[in-house]
């Protein structure tokens, strides 16, 4: 008997149905007023940290490079989106979509420009040069007063980051990166991580794929930046410093390099933890750090390692087991 497999349309069907149910439930909860403003904001924050982590995972987990300037791309996208939203050229619905796309494209363009020289380096050198570029972006934003209002901050940004918008962006990011990784482009990216020389000898254009991964990663970081702006209502360049990049990297490493599910879980935990630990005041950061250290000692490959969750695979496994049990009992009766 052939092992049971779910056909492709059924897989998509199940996943889409679950996602829509979650959207409706989430929307109902956030709109009902059950949660306070702080809780609502926390959910939005988890959302854009997931986007940031998943997009950085494309660079660190899948491509195997270590850039440290993710907050820079987030800043570029944030300011691009916020400035567009403030101008209020389009009606609200269209404005959200165009603003997010504009944020992504601007960040991707900056990522492309930085990626061409930066990706000639690797390892520690790439980390340092991207860190430098990230800081340059922040300093530039601080000094073009006429556009960004510098250190005073860009204020009265329309609060477009509702649960629905953030949720759809999260799903779009995860789906797009998942689809990318399961195509010939994704395999090329993985092959560069595993063995660059062998990848070249297979005809994979390594420079092209490194820059492309960098730009795609920056695109989603830009979208996350815009969502951040739409949640806070105010943008200050100081929010996009080096520590923000490190925080995002921490999420990726804690979740497991190369595991999208890991990034999602770690982003949720690490955003949620400081919030629930608030009553502990100054002990909060100690507990937070201790938890990180404990995870790294007992699970150095991250929470999920490089395992990736697939609902269809689990369903298949369960059905196969049931079929087996049935087959066994049928044998007995015979």
């Amino acid at each position, binding site marked *: 008997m052939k092992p049971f497999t779910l056909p492709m349309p059924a897989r998509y069907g199940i996943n889409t149905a679950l996602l829509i149910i979650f959207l409706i439930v989430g929307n109902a909860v956030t709109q009902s007023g059950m949660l306070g403003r702080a809780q609502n904001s926390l959910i939005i924050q988890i959302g854009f940290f997931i986007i940031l982590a998943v997009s950085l995972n494309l660079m660190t987990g899948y491509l195997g490079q270590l850039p440290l300037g993710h907050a820079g791309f987030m800043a570029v996208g944030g300011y691009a989106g916020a400035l567009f939203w403030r101008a209020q050229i389009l009606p609200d619905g269209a404005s959200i979509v165009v603003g997010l796309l504009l944020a992504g494209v601007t960040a991707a363009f900056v990522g492309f420009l930085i990626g061409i020289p930066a990706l000639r380096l690797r390892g520690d050198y790439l980390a340092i040069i991207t860190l430098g570029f990230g800081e340059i972006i922040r300093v530039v934003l601080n000094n073009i007063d006429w556009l960004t209002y510098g250190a005073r901050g860009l204020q009265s940004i329309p609060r477009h980051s509702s649960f629905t918008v953030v949720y759809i962006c999260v799903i779009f990011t995860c789906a797009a990166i998942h689809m990318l990784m399961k195509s010939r482009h994704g395999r090329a990216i993985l092959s560069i991580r595993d063995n660059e020389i062998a990848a*070249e000898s297979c005809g994979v254009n390594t420079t092209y794929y490194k820059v492309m991964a960098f730009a795609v990663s920056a695109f989603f970081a830009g979208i996350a930046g815009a969502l951040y702006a739409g949640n806070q209502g105010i943008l200050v360049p100081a929010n996009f410093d080096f520590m923000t990049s490190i925080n995002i990297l921490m999420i990726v490493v804690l979740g497991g390099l190369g595991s999208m599910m890991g990034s999602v879980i770690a982003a949720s935990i690490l955003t949620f933890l400081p919030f629930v630990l608030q009553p502990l005041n100054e002990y909060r950061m100690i507990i937070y750090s201790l938890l990180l250290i404990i995870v790294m000692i007992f699970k150095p490959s991250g929470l999920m390692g490089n395992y990736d969750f697939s609902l269809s695979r689990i369903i298949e496994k369960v059905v196969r087991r049931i079929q087996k049990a049935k087959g066994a009992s049928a044998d007995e009766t015979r």
Partner: protein
Amino acid sequence: MRPGDPRAPFIPDRDYDKSPVMQCVGLGIDFGGLTAVDDFNISVGPTEICGLIGPNGAGKTTVFNLLTKVYQPSRGTILINGKDTARLNTIAANKLGLARTFQNIRLFQNMTVLENVLVGLHNEMNYGLTKAIFRLPGYWRAEKIAKERARELLSIFDMEDTANYKAGSLPYGSQRRLEIVRALATNPVILLLDEPAAGMNPAETEELMENIQKINKTFQIAILLIEHDMKLVMGICEGIAALNYGRVIAKGTPAEIQSNPKVIEAYLGTGGGKPDA
């Protein structure tokens, strides 16, 4: 070119009326003051199996790296199917039809066996980023064809059953075979094998010999191999070039190479009580 021409040492009779698939003329490379390879001339017929032998450090792998453009040659020309490869990089050389395996296995360890072969088929598929992300029909079509082709290639070495295993978890011999399959997937005109039998036991080597001949016959491609296992080299190569200190010291059929005094000297040193200088 005729028999006896020094640049065409061992094109077999069946290939004489065809132009050679690869030609090197006066190939050489210097690393600083060290001349690693010099005056390397070779012509390989379209369906020929030939070997490159020589003691350790003779420059065999350097020749492979020159051919695949990992190093740019200091002088000389490489022609693939009559096309000059000057100023091309590894990727362009691969697209011209050069595929290789490595002395120390270079697989994509964390990817499955099937995915390894699919990376080899990378340039055979040509759907873009949008088709991939939105899963348009072009994506499905190309992926289906590529996966079928990959399984077909794996079946040459009876490896279809291991398609979903991690490449790094395969036993050593299978890893070597997978590397050959991956190279074949790029649709080469000439296959360069760098010590394919290294670390194999006699039975595995025997099987490898059969497989190399099978590849040569079914794909009708040329094969150039570096090998220390003389049984393999003498058994399947139609022509052999022996290299020492970066220079070709002898070319010819296996029988000629075996009796060539220069080759014997390179491997065993000078006999007759002459002191080593």
